[in-house]
């Protein structure tokens, strides 16, 4: 329908801007909660150091938050500018979720973030604490709504196609809200954000401890980060996203691809720990397998099959054929044929309409597709296994490394000798990038794994784009590349500058650099 380059460039732009936005979001999610915890301790104990901690880590949070706001604007514009047909086709469900995010979350966090920074002298202690917590709640509620929207893209429940308006329409808000995929995603992603904040505070505090600077300040920050981080990483792992992979066909395909499970193996399926997926020959070489594990993870049972990619592809082909019938009946309905029979036939096949639309890539009429086209479209429903297999494993490896760090850090905080464990602190400093690597690869697994769909089983990606020219896309991609690169350089410069300054940047006269000056060094 559209040139492949427009589709490819649109996907590239969305991927880059979303991944870039997601550099800042997890830290915001985590830092606001850590700020809330630190300030709560301040209000309960009255010890100034906790107030200084809230203010200093708040400064770093602020540098990051500005970038989150900047890059978040892009995403709201982008559905309309670049995914116009998507916006028309599912706006009835997706739109109100975004609007709810605006009413319930964006206003909350954005209205109170100003008071968080400028309200210290204008509010009582408790009032300011409430403001900080409202900011934290606002950021997490924001994640709730956007993940309900994203969960619906993975597993579109509570909506159906309306042939009069030619789009999906909401039938049950409760089904959309309590979508199991969305709920699992929310817990997983928000907890991953808390881990990001914790790893950041843990790593930076370790750097102060290693340099023997502001030790009391850093040790307290380290303790809070290790405890909150341990609780969060356990939530991420135990309530892992994978538990959502049993709902819906596309999620099943994603699971099979992550595990490089080509054939349906007899229950309980074994888990492929490592191996070399070979897309062309559809097999996995040198696989190291753990018996029973996949069956347990995916089905929570030992007697259910986990379907392999080849079987799932055959199912896709069947649904594509059914989708062709749905498309044919839809054309009759649209040309004014309102007979009972046409309605019945359309209703019988309409859940497969999206699969029929996959054929639009090969024939605009859909109904005249031959066996070769159907086979090509069915092949399209199987993603590139190697990419998903490896990105997923990178994410999991980051997660378990952080579990180790937080567990050891928490233990040594409990026995009060953490600041003597230099290896641990060094490891914490070098592990600061891990949560970001995990978050970006995790995003990739979820979104790339959903291809060729924007809405699983409902709307193919290649139909979702706006009717733009590739010149327009190059203009926008160029603009994003320019602005985002410059902004990232500036952001990192400020982050490093303020991390190096440490709590001395508060100008209280109590911390390292100012004491050095005071002592004439």
């Amino acid at each position: 329908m559209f040139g492949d380059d427009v589709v490819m460039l649109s996907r590239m732009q969305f991927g880059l801007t979303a991944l870039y936005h997601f550099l800042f979001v997890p830290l915001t999610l985590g830092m606001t909660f850590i700020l809330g915890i630190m300030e709560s301790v301040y209000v309960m104990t009255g010890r100034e150091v906790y107030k200084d901690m809230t203010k200093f880590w708040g400064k770093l949070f602020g540098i990051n938050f500005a970038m989150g706001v900047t890059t978040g604007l892009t995403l709201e514009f982008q559905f309309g500018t670049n995914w116009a047909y998507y916006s028309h086709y599912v706006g009835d469900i997706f739109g109100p979720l975004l609007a709810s995010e605006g009413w319930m979350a964006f206003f909350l966090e954005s209205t109170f973030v100003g008071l968080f920074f400028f309200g210290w002298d204008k509010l009582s202690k408790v009032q300011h604490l409430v403001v900080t917590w409202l900011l934290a709640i606002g950021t997490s509620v924001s994640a709730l709504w956007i993940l309900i929207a994203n969960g619906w893209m993975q597993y579109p429940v509570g909506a159906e196609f309306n042939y009069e308006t030619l789009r999906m329409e909401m039938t049950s808000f409760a089904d959309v809200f309590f979508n199991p995929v969305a709920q699992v995603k929310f817990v997983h992603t928000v907890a991953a954000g808390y881990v990001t904040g914790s790893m950041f505070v843990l790593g930076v505090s370790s750097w102060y401890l290693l340099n023997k600077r502001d030790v009391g300040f850093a040790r307290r920050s380290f303790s809070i980060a290790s405890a909150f981080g341990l609780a969060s990483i356990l939530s991420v792992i135990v309530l892992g996203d994978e538990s959502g992979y049993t709902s819906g066909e596309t999620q099943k395909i994603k699971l099979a691809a992550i595990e490089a499970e080509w054939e349906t193996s007899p229950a309980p399926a074994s888990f492929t720990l490592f191996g070399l997926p070979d897309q062309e020959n559809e097999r996995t070489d040198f696989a190291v397998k753990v018996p029973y594990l996949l069956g347990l993870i995916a089905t929570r049972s030992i007697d259910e099959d986990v379907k392999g990619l080849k079987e799932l592809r055959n199912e896709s082909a069947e649904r594509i054929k059914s989708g062709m019938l749905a498309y044919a009946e839809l054309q009759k309905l649209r040309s004014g044929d309102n007979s009972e029979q046409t309605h019945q036939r359309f209703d019988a096949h309409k859940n497969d309409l999206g699969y029929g639309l996959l054929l639009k890539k090969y024939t605009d009429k859909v109904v005249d597709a031959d066996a070769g086209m159907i086979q090509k479209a069915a092949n399209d429903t199987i993603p590139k296994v190697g990419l998903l297999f490896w990105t997923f494993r990178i994410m999991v490896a980051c997660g378990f490394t952080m579990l180790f760090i937080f567990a050891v850090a928490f233990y040594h905080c409990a026995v009060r000798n953490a600041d003597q464990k230099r290896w641990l602190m060094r490891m914490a400093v070098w592990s600061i990038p891990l949560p970001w690597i995990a978050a970006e690869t995790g995003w990739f697994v979820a979104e790339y794994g959903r291809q060729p769909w924007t809405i699983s089983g409902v709307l193919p990606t290649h139909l979702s784009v706006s009717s733009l020219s590739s010149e327009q896309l190059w203009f926008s991609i160029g603009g994003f590349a320019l602005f985002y690169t410059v902004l990232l350089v500036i952001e990192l410069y400020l982050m490093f500058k303020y991390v190096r300054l440490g709590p001395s940047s508060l100008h209280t006269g109590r911390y390292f650099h100012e004491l050095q000056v005071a002592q004439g060094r």
Partner: protein
Amino acid sequence: MFDYETIRLIWWLFIGVVAIAFALTEGFDFGICTLLPLLGKSDVERRVIINTVGATWEGNQVWLILLGGAIFAIWPAVYAALFSGLYVAMLLVLFALFFRPAGFDYRSKSSNPAWRNAWDWGLFIGGTLPPVLLGVLVGNLLLGLPFHLDQDLRPFYDGSFWALLSPFALLCGVISLLATTFHGALFLKWRTEGVIHDRARAAASVLGLLLLISLIAATLWGMSAINRPEITQMAGTSAASNPLNKTVIAAGPGWLYHFLAHPWMLFAPVLGFIGLALAWLLGRGQSTAGAFLMSSIGITGVLLTVGFGLFPFLLISTTDPRSSLTLWDATASHTTLLLAFWITVVFLPIVLLYTRWVYKVIWGSVTEAAVLKDSHTLY
């Protein structure tokens, strides 16, 4: 609770409310950013100007985000056709907005004068380009846009970015910028003392006059320039949303006739002129809150005039009149409109209440002494 027709009309009003809230709140933020490098001579003066909106600009910006989100939810077809059709213009607005969060937050994080000056001009761009382009957009909404829908309701845009910049649309862009800077100058005058207060008053006096003159020119010009299409047949105000189920002729009776046919609508332009004229007069004197209130009323009147002038159209197509989108055939489903209605009815008052509280807490004149005292915490 409400039938489809009623809830469609309610949402037309609600989106108007959100658009007006955006114009009134982010409007003065934009204006202050435009005035920043012009009215502030020294660093500390500029910091005074920035900190008049320092604690609240972020909340104000959510009205823009909400406006986008509400159009997505309520009029998905409008969101799709408008944002993709005006691709380059929308991205320029977006790129300009990028300067704001970083500009506000990063400016004071280094004392290097070149760094601070660069951010001041960044904030200037972020406060100037969006109102100009959004004003041009409003002008084009009135004139109609070249787009059509195909049989699958996919929007196609048939024009170019440069074609948006017609003389009438450019005048609308100028009016928009004059309105934000006038509104911003009155806010600045209200929240400052001394030299900035005096400069803001002088600026408001010039800007208000220019705004009134431009508005009169646009009104007179609009009477002949704006042609409304006419719907000759449609599926009904409660029918399923499909814009192609109607017939429309391109050139119906013009804009002036539309207002004369519904004389009650004339209260909107009257409100606009009286509000802005009073704001200008009051702004020249000692009045602060009163002048700002009047400019808020005036801007509300101008925006209502635009909305009434378009009614029942949301997006007029000049190349394929049948593809024009109206509030009767471009909305979300009945279920979604009702859901969004209840969410709004619950959360709008809550948002207004806590926003009011935040303004109460931070209210007071921003002075040079205060900026110097809290030099390390303020913007």
